[in-house]
Structure formats: C-alpha cells, structure tokens
C-alpha cells in the first residue's frame, strides 16, 4: 500500500467536502485555541508565582521589653534555623527613619508622639513556597520576644488562587471544546463514509483491505487536526498581541513579563504542541468513526 496514494486520497477528500472540512477545522481550531490559552495561563501563573515568591520575606515584630540580650538571643535562634537565608535587624529608630520618608505617615507619627514603631527582623527564606512560608511564620510567632509575624502574602495568595481558578475554568472549557471537536470530526467522517458508500463498495469489490479504505480517512483526520492546531496558534498569537497591547495602554501592565524568556521560542514550541495535539485528536476522531462505520 503506497503512503503517497493514501495522502493523495486524503487530500481528495479535503477537496471534495469543502463545507464539512471548514466546520471541522473551525471546531478543532476553537477547541485547540482554548487549550492553548490554558497553556499560556499556566505559564503566566508559574512565572507570577516565582516572581511573588522572590519578593516574599517574613517580618517579625519584636516586643519592646525584650532588651538587647533578648534581641541577640532571638537573632541567633533565627540564624540557626535551616530555612533561613538571611536576617536584617530593623531597630525602632531605623523603622522611624524609614517611615518618616512619607509625609502623611510622619504627620501621623508626630501626632502620636514618641516612637510607636516596634523593632523588627526581616527574614529571607531558602524555600519560598506558600506552605513553607506559612509554617515558618507560625513557628516565628511562638518565639519569646516576638509580638507578631507576617509575610504579607495574603494578597498574593488571593491573586494566585484567582488565577488558578481562571485556569481551571478555561481548562474545563478547553476539555469540553476538545471533546466536541473530536465528536464533530467523528460525525463528519461518518457523513463522508455515508456519502462514499458506493466508492467504498467498489473498493471492496476490487480487493481493497479495510486499512486501504480507512487510511485516507485517518490521514484526513490528522491533516484536519494539524491545520486546526496551526490556525489555533495563529489566532492565539493574534489574541495575545491585542490583549497585551490594551493591557499595556489601559492598565500599564506588560503581560509579556509573565511569559518565559525567549517569546519566539515559546511561540514555536507552543505551535508545535498545538499541531501535535490537534493531529492526535484528529486521528482519535477518525479512528472512532472508521472503526464504527467501516466494519465489513
């Protein structure tokens, strides 16, 4: 059986059922576009998480009654902790100096009189995963001489959770669309098989094997999927450019910063991934249908 002949037959099918091909191409590209969006969001969330994690530091507010000896003991305990990468001690005076830079806060502090700001320690951790940071903060709060401790990650956590939720929602949408695309491809092949009943009968009579008849339909599915993947990549790139442009203009947020470095390489890998995924989905749809329709 010649592969060239099967490919030629597949293209003949593409040429013959233009409208059906357009429907399946549209369905495939839309579903793959949603799938691509999931990948973009995943990459964005991954980078954003790393960005936020890089900025995370735990601050321990120290009790005024601890005294110099207590402070030294506290700092020594912190430095010995295996998770600690570095500690910076901020005295009450230094804190006052830092905050006084802002006129509104200085006015407020002047109104209070004296120095109400506590001494603190800014601690950088080796592993900045949310679980690790939370666990360390809890441990820190229970140390003697510590008034309170926080890592200021509440807002970041909420943002990440919201993005994770959006990603899951888009993933669910993508999975639904992918399933719909596979079903559409399977049904279009059923229609094509039905329209080609006579041709298939002739092929059987002259001795064509099942795979000789199935081959062009399977290749058709792969071509449809690959073309859908390519179209999805193009649409996604266009959509990304539009959203990134308006995001920069209206919100002053550069979305490109959330993509991994080397945007062209990322786009090419993404395009290849979508084409491959599309081909596999197209083949799956074709296999489902030819298996059902072409039993002798």
């Amino acid at each position, binding site marked *: *059986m*010649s592969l*060239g*002949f099967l490919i030629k037959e597949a293209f*003949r099918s593409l040429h*013959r059922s233009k409208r059906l091909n357009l429907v399946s191409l549209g369905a495939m590209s839309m579903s793959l576009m949603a799938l691509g969006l999931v990948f973009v969001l995943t990459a964005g969330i991954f980078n954003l998480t790393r960005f936020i994690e890089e900025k995370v530091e735990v601050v321990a507010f120290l009790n005024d009654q601890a005294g110099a000896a207590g402070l030294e003991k506290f700092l020594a305990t912190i430095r010995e902790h295996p998770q600690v990468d570095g500690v910076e001690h901020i005295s009450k005076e230094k804190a006052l100096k830092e905050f006084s830079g802002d006129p509104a806060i200085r006015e407020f502090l002047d109104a209070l009189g004296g120095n109400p700001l506590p001494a603190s320690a800014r601690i950088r951790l080796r592993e900045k995963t949310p679980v690790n940071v939370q666990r360390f903060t809890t441990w820190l709060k229970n140390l003697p001489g510590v008034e309170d401790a926080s890592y200021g990650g509440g807002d970041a956590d909420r943002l990440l959770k919201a993005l994770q939720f959006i990603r899951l929602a888009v993933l669910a949408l993508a999975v639904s669309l992918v399933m719909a695309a596979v079903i559409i491809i399977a049904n279009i092949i059923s229609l094509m098989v039905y329209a080609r009943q*006579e*041709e298939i*009968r*002739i*092929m*059987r*009579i*002259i*001795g*064509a*094997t*099942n795979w*000789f008849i199935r081959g062009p339909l399977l290749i058709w599915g792969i071509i449809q999927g690959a073309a859908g993947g390519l179209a999805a990549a193009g649409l996604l790139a266009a959509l990304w450019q539009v959203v990134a442009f308006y995001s920069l203009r209206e919100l002053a947020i550069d979305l490109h910063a959330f993509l991994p470095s080397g945007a062209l390489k990322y786009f090419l890998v993404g395009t290849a991934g979508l084409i491959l995924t599309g081909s596999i989905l197209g083949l799956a749809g074709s296999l489902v249908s030819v298996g059902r329709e072409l039993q*002798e």
Partner: protein
Amino acid sequence: MLQFHHVYMTYQNEFKALRDINLEIPRGEFVMITGPSGAGKSTLIKLICREMLPTKGQVIVDDHNVAKLKPRQIPFFRRRIGVVFQDFRLLYDRTVAENVALALYVTGYAGRTINREVNQALKKVGLEKKGKLKPWHLSGGEMQRVVLARAMVHDPPLLLADEPTGNLDFATGWEVMRLLRQVTETGTTVVCTTHNLNFIQKMRKRTLFIDKGIIRGEKKAGQVL
C-alpha cells in the same frame, strides 16, 4: 476453477434466489448465464465474489471454499477476480486512468508499473487516448470498456461480468462482448450474465439457462439455439 455444490440462497425476506445449484466451470472457459429478471443470475455472481454467503451448499473458487475465508483473506481473494457491472460503478471524480489504476493501487503495485499497466489496459479496450478524461465525458460503451480495463488490468484468473451489455445498444454491447471473448484467449475464466439471447446466439459459448433460482438447461459451446 469454479464449482457450486448444492447451493441454496434465500434472502432475509424469504425470497429463494437460488435452489440446489450444481455447476462446474473449468479454467479458461467462457460461460454465459441467462434468464429473466429475478432468475438469480446476479445472486450467483455475488456468491462467487463473496459479496454474500450461500444459505446452504458450497461455492468453490480456485480451490477455496468462499464461506471459509477469514475476513482478512477476503480482499486478497477478491484481487483474483475482476468484476464488470451493468451500471459501470466508476468513480466519477477521477479520470479514466485513475479509475483503472485504482485496482493496481489496491493490489500494491508500484507507481511506475501502474502507469505502464494502465496504458496497456486502456490500449486493449481502445481508450488509450481518453485516459485523462472524466467518465462523464464518455459514452455508455466507452464507460463499460473502462470498467473492463479496470477489471482486467491486474490479470485476474477469473472475470465476472454481470449484465455488462444491459445499458448498451446491440452494436456497442457486441463490442464489449467481443472484448470479453478476447479475455479468455489469455486463459482467464469468464462468467457473463445476460438476458439478451442475440448475444448468446452470436457468441456460441456454453450457456446456462436459469429461472426462479434453478438451472433449467444448458447449451454447450458451439451449439445453436
């Protein structure tokens, strides 16, 4: 080459198409089968190429009991049979040459050989200059000659022609019959059904008369009706 042993064929609607058919056709013989419409001629052809299985009895083709062929063996069995239909059954979105070549692609011939074999087959049926045309540009007789070229291009040992002249006038039909007769000269066995007694008279080949699924009589080769 071809044997029928007590073959019965009853369709799902209880119509008895063939009843106790016993038949033997040696290799290289040209046999005509005639009878009125619904006599069972086409059923007989369908049983030979394993489009259907007999309800009872055995159909032996080239020492193979067709009922015992495994599904994966059927395509390879059919490649040893050429079939000509009354209604041509050509693929109208392909050229004449592509229609003929299909039989060779199916059989696994290489591209270069296919072109040569297709040209030879079209030359044999007198259509060597019409290979690039689509079938609808041809007359009925020419279409039937394309079908004949497709059936013969891979030199099968058995050729089945089911009413090959049914849609043709006498002169055109006779041209097709003449080509079929040439086929036997290369040792191919031909089974041809027709309800046209003029062809039977003129061909002077062995003829089986079938009616209501029963072989009612036989005319030997060379005998006049």
